[in-house]
């Protein structure tokens, strides 16, 4: 019997359904029209969210992936459709987010001829994708999509681009979908030997002042429970990178705060006082380490990561273990002795008290009737118990959110870490809401970042997505202004913003909203935001020239924390 044939475009849709994809974010155009035509017949099985700009599509897919642990899927057309994805690809690559982008391409005969809307997508996206591939035959579509999903989510996750020529979408092919389980040149699951774990456990067992640093690797390997057990058995003080927040609840007794430039005082300073530093699923980003020549020199470093290229890349490790975080924690659990580092933990607590006292002094300098950014986050934490999904943008409000919102639940912290992409929060929150419809999702953005993808309010309106939005408006590019104040003699070069009527804009999109500026209005306004039945925008006018502290200036050591 001859096997039934379908078009390449139908093969794309069928392959996505075979991968159990339920949601796609996209924007149609000439070169991807056959795929959209095939989608027309499957609208009841595959939910397509029409965004307003392709950058919105990929950030939404990232938000979806981060909250759900599934692969985010994007459709875009050739040329400008594809190039509009580039920022999101770079963001997903540096933050290890599994995303598959299916992009239309001009017909294969026209490749390389500067045809209408032709761009060398493979060439452009090569350095910022985990893998990319150009499909020119309908028969390659199913195996390529299978491989893309496997690569995007296995090992250290990342974005994958599939560029499909228009003729491959039109052509007929047989369809027999087989999931990809292996790529011969690729080994995503490390097979670490026990020796490294034994050595690591010996160091941990003997240490007087051991200190655990965790990153997003814990979240990506779904090792939160193993982490909690490990921390409780070993008694290790534990601090997190920006993207690791939520992996250990903020209210856990061993949680000592956030690392890095705007991290917590004790969390940073103790890095240079511990005797054994254990880093799991984090990559010693320069925002975390400050000056590496003065970073944890006194400590024996144990570094565990799923990406071998991260080991010894920035910080030389005494014990480097190429392993998945979950496997590593399970293995170490059997080798470590139960301990309580009460005095050592107490030192962190004293550091925290010192920091609080100093920061309170900064606060006294401000008019108490006005709202500081941190006030909004503290109220949000009180009202939600730190158990909603918070998607932050990039800048001062991002650091203030990371510092003041208590992430007490896993997979609820979504922000652009490595790339620092302004404009990330609004579309990522749309994706997060679709990835976890039962959770409350709040996007927190500054006045500037919100405007970088403000067009996605249209997506919220059209697809009726219940995203809550808070704009912390200081009419400044606040983080740049802070640096201008501290390091460029207050020469505020192009950082002041003249802003539109945000609530009015939201209303144009049928999204209710409110603007407040007084401390007395804050709580009630956030209650209203949280209780609104659908999308809601709250604009909070905050102090214009508030600075984020603590701060480790660029090039300083983690011991040199400025508190005011």
């Amino acid at each position, binding site marked *: 019997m001859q096997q039934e044939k379908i078009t390449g475009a139908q093969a794309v849709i069928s392959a996505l359904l075979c991968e159990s994809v339920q949601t796609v974010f996209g924007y149609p155009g000439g070169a991807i029209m056959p795929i959209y035509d095939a989608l027309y017949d499957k609208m009841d099985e595959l939910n397509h969210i029409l965004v307003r700009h392709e950058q919105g599509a990929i950030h939404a897919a990232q938000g979806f992936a981060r909250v759900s642990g599934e692969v985010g899927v994007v459709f875009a057309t050739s040329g400008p459709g594809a190039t509009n994805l580039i920022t999101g690809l770079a963001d997903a690559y540096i933050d290890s987010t599994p995303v598959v982008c299916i992009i239309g391409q001009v017909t294969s005969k026209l490749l390389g001829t500067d045809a209408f809307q032709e761009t060398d997508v*493979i*060439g452009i996206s*090569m*350095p910022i994708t*985990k*893998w*990319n591939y*150009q499909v020119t035959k309908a028969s390659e579509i199913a195996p390529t999509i299978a491989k893309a999903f496997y*690569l995007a989510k296995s090992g250290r996750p990342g974005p994958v681009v599939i560029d499909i020529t228009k003729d491959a979408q039109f052509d007929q092919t047989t369809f027999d979908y087989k999931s990809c389980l292996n*790529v*011969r*040149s*690729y080994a995503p699951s490390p097979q670490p030997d026990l020796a490294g774990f034994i050595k690591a456990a010996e160091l941990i067992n003997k240490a007087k002042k051991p200190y655990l640093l965790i990153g997003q690797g814990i979240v990506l390997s779904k090792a939160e429970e193993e982490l909690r057990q490990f921390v409780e058995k070993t008694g290790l003080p534990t601090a997190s990178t920006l993207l690791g927040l939520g992996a250990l609840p903020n209210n856990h007794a061993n949680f000592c705060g956030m690392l890095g430039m705007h991290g917590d005082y004790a969390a940073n300073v103790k890095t240079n006082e511990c005797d054994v530093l254990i880093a799991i699923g984090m990559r010693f980003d320069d925002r975390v380490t400050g000056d590496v020549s003065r970073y944890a020199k006194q400590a024996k470093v144990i570094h565990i990561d799923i*990406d*071998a*290229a*991260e*080991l*010894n*890349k920035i910080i030389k490790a005494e014990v480097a273990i190429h392993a998945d975080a979950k496997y590593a924690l399970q293995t170490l659990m059997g080798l470590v002795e139960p301990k309580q580092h009460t005095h050592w933990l107490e030192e962190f607590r004293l550091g925290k008290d010192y920091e609080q006292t100093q920061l309170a002094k900064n606060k006294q300098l401000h008019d108490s009737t006005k709202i500081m950014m941190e006030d909004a986050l503290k109220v949000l934490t009180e009202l939600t118990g730190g158990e909603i999904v918070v998607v932050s943008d990039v800048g001062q409000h991002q650091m203030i959110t990371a510092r003041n919102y208590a992430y007490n639940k896993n997979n609820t912290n979504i922000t652009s870490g490595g790339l620092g992409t302004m404009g990330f929060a609004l579309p990522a929150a749309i994706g997060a809401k679709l990835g976890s419809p039962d959770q409350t999702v709040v996007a927190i953005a500054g006045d500037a970042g919100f405007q970088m993808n403000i067009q996605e309010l249209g997506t919220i309106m059209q697809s009726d997505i219940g995203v809550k939005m808070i704009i912390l408006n200081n009419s400044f590019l606040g983080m740049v202004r802070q640096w201008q104040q501290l390091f460029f003699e207050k020469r505020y070069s192009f950082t002041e913003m003249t802003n539109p009527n945000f609530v009015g804009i939201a209303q144009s999109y049928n999204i209710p909203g409110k603007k407040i500026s007084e401390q007395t209005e804050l709580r009630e306004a956030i209650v209203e935001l949280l209780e609104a039945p659908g999308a809601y925008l709250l604009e909070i006018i905050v102090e214009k020239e508030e600075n984020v502290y603590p701060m480790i200036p660029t090039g300083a050591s983690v011991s040199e924390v400025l508190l005011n």
Partner: protein
Amino acid sequence: MKEEFTLSVFTENSIGMLTRITNVFTRRHINLDSLTVSESEVKQVFKYTVVFKSTQEQIDKLIGQLERLVEVFKVFAHKNTEIIYQELALYKVKTDLLSNGAVEQIIRESQARILTVDREFIAIEKTGYIEEIESLFAKLSSFGILEFTRSGRVAINKAMIE
């Protein structure tokens, strides 16, 4: 201290692989001295031989980042003492120079060989170290070289199995 390293990068035979490999060097602002690509002893597994100056510390990081590429199987780094390596050069000179005994002597002494004798030119082939190839170039220069080309390095490991 920088020294010369030869990297052997074993990959799938796929479109764009060359760019994927060179991107890793470009990102770190490394200029390559030589690059040779061919199928290896295993069918459909390609070998990139990359020569450049670097430090052991940087080499370790480069190996990690190259091996992270999905279509790279394995990367080996060697110092010059650990490999057997050669380059190949072709020189084109006028045929009438053959009547000059000095040129014939240079070719013999350099252990080069004549590949082709055309009515107007001869093609000389020399395989060896870069210094030997350059030395022959210098010797022939005074007689006039019409065209010259030199390959990248090819290398095999001195260890029995890589």
